[in-house]
C-alpha cells in the first residue's frame, strides 16, 4: 500500500541529503547538537518529527524497521509511525529487536543488546541538557563551546544537599567521550549504561531543529560524584509475565484496591522470554 505520490520515505532527496549531512556531522562530533532545517511533517511536533526525519534520511529499501514507544511496539504512536513508513517507504517492518536494521524509539533503549550494523533513532523533545538551567539557546550554545558545565554539577549537588539523592530519574545527563554534556532523551536512567553500544545512535529533535549522534563504542559517562555514584534504578520486582529480573518495568494498576503488577516495558523482550518458556508469577 505504498503511496506513489510521495518520494521514498516521504522527504524529497534534497531534504534527506541535508539531514544526512547533519547526521554525519553529528557522528563526527559525538554529542554535539547540529542545527538542521527541520521540516514540517504530517505528524505534529512532539510526536517524534525529529526521529521520523532522521529515520526517513536513514532508511533504504532493504531495511527492516521497528518502532517502539515506551518500549512497546503496539503503543498508538509507535503504530502510527510504523504505518507511516510502511505507506511511504514500503520497508519491511518487525517487532523483533534482533531482526530490525533501523529502530526508532521514544523513551527506551531495547533490553536486548544491539549489534553492529543496527541504527537506533531516538525521538528527542528538548535536546539541550542545560535548557532547564538556562532557557536561552544563545547562552547554552556558548556554555557548550566553552565546556562550561559547572551549572549542571551545581544542580546535581543541590539535589543531593536537598534530597539526599540526585533527583533526576529520566533524561539523565551524560558526558560523551569526555567532551559534550548530552541529553540522552527522556529514557529512564536505568537505560543510561546501555548508551555505550555497538550500534549507531542518532537523536532527532524536530521542533528544536537539532540532530546529534553517538558513534558505536563511544564512551558515555552519566554525570555523578565520587561519593554519590550514578545508580541505574528500576522497580524492585521481577516481571509479572516473564519473570525477568533485569528488565525495566511498567507498573500496571489492576484494580481499585491497590492491586498492581509489574511488567516489562520492552514488549519484544517480554514476549521472547515467554516464548522460551519463562513465566512470571502473574502469568496465566
Amino acid at each position, binding site marked *: 500500500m505504498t503511496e506513489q505520490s*510521495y518520494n521514498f520515505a516521504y522527504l*524529497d532527496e534534497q531534504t534527506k541529503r541535508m539531514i544526512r549531512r547533519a547526521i554525519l556531522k553529528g557522528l563526527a562530533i559525538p554529542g554535539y547538537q547540529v*542545527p*538542521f*532545517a*527541520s*521540516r*514540517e*511533517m*504530517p505528524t*505534529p*511536533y*512532539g*510526536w517524534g518529527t525529529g526521529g521520523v526525519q532522521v529515520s526517513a534520511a536513514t532508511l533504504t529499501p532493504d531495511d527492516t524497521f521497528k518502532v517502539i*514507544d*515506551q*518500549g512497546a511496539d*503496539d*503503543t*498508538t*504512536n*509507535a*503504530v*502510527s509511525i510504523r*504505518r507511516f513508513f510502511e505507506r511511504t517507504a514500503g520497508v519491511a517492518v518487525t517487532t523483533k529487536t534482533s531482526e530490525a536494521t533501523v529502530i526508532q524509539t521514544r*523513551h*527506551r533503549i531495547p533490553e536486548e543488546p544491539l549489534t553492529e550494523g543496527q541504527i537506533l533513532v531516538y525521538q528527542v*523533545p528538548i535536546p539541550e541538557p542545560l535548557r532547564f538551567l538556562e532557557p*536561552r*539557546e*544563545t547562552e547554552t550554545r556558548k556554555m557548550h563551546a566553552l565546556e562550561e558545565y559547572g551549572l549542571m554539577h551545581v544542580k546535581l549537588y543541590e539535589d543531593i544537599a536537598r*534530597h*539526599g*539523592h540526585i*533527583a533526576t*530519574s*529520566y*533524561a539523565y545527563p551524560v558526558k560523551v567521550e569526555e567532551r559534550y554534556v548530552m541529553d540522552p532523551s*527522556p529514557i*529512564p536512567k*536505568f537505560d543510561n549504561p546501555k548508551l555505550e553500544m555497538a550500534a549507531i545512535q542518532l537523536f532527532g529533535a524536530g*521542533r528544536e531543529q537539532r540532530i546529534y549522534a553517538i558513534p558505536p563504542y563511544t564512551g558515555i559517562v552519566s554525570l555523578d560524584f565520587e561519593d554519590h555514584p550514578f545508580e541505574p*534504578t*528500576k*522497580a524492585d520486582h521481577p516481571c*509479572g*509475565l516473564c519473570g525477568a529480573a533485569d528488565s*525495566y*518495568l*511498567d*507498573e*500496571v494498576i*489492576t484494580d481499585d484496591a491497590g492491586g498492581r*503488577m509489574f*511488567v516489562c*516495558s520492552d*514488549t519484544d523482550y*517480554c514476549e521472547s522470554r515467554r516464548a522460551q518458556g519463562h513465566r512470571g508469577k*502473574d502469568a*496465566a
Partner: protein
Amino acid sequence: MYVAVKGGERAIDAAHQWLAEERRGDTDVPEMSVAQIREQMRLAVNRVMAEGSLYDPDLAALAIKQARGDLIEAIFLIRAYRTTLPRFGASRPVDTDAMAVERRVSATFKDLPGGQILGPTFDYTHRLLDFKLAAEGEAPVAGRADTGVGHVPHVTGFLNREGLIEEQPSSDDTPPDLTREPLELPANRALRLQALTRADEGFTLGLAYSTQRGYARNHAFVGELRIGAVEVEMDIPELGFAISIGEVTLTECETVNQFKGSKTEPPQFTRGYGLVFGQTERKAISMALVDRALRWEELGEDNVGAPAQDAEFVLYHSDNIQATGFLEHIKLPHYVDFQSELELVRKLRRSAGAQDLQEAAE
C-alpha cells in the same frame, strides 16, 4: 487479570472513522462545500493562508473543512502540505505601492493623497447579533461608485520627504528563510518579519498589546493600513524579463512611532512593519508593533526586559504549530518516565520518613 494491551492499530482506525463521522455532523443538514467556506469564511481562510505560509484560498478552505473549523489544525494541514511542494524559484519583491487598494486608512493624517478608503470593515458596525442572517436572508448588494482612486502613495513617503522618519534603505540581499535554514540568533529584521508574518495571531496580538500597556511601549500610530491585491512577478531566465504569475491580497501596516532619539539616532519617527496574506488587519497591526519593539537594539534604545523586546523569546514561541505540537504531546504515553519518577518519589519519601523517625528518637 492483566493482559498486555494489543490492538493499537484497530483503536486508531476506529478513532479515525469516528472523527470523520463527527466532522460531517448531522447528515440531515446539508454538507458545506469548500467553495462556501472559501467565500463565506474568508477571514478564517486568510488566517490559515497567513499562518500556513501558503497563498491558496481553495486549499485553505479545504483544510478548514477537514479540521472541523479548528484553525490551528487547518494551518498545520497547510504547513505539512507546503513542505512537500517543489521550489521553482523566488518572486520579485511585491510592490505594495502599486497595490489595487480596497481599504486604506491612515490614523495620522485626516486627508491625504489617495484618500481614506474604509473598505469592507467591521470597524463601525454595532456588534448586535443579526438575526436576519439566521433566517438566511439574501445579502444586500453594496452600492458602487467610481472612487477615481489611482495611485495611492505610502504615507511614510510624505514624512520621509521632510526627513522626519528614519530611512529604510532598500537592499537586494537575499533574505534568510527560516523554512529552509534552522533559526539561528541573532536574527536580522527580515528573518524576524518572516517569523512574525506566520506567527500565531493570538500570541502576536498579546505581545503587541503588552507593548501598549507599558512593557516596552513604543508609541505607535497607524501611519497607514492598506489592503488590496498586488501582482506577483517572477524573473524567467529563459525570457530574460519578469512576468506576472498571479496576484495575492495582502494587508500592510506601517506604524509611525515616536522616538526621542538615542545615543546613535537623532529624534525622528521610527517604523514598525507588518505584512500579512489576505485581509488580516489585527495580525498586521500586531506584527508592526512587535517588529518595532524588537528593533530596540538597532535604534539604541534601552532593553527594559519586556517580553516583546526579547527576540529569542518571541521567535522561539510564536509558531503555533510548534507550540501546539509540543503542548499537546504531553498526552502521549509517558509511562516509562512516570515510572522512574514514581520510584524516585518513593525513595525520597522513604529517606525523609527515616529521617523523621530518627529525629523523633533523638
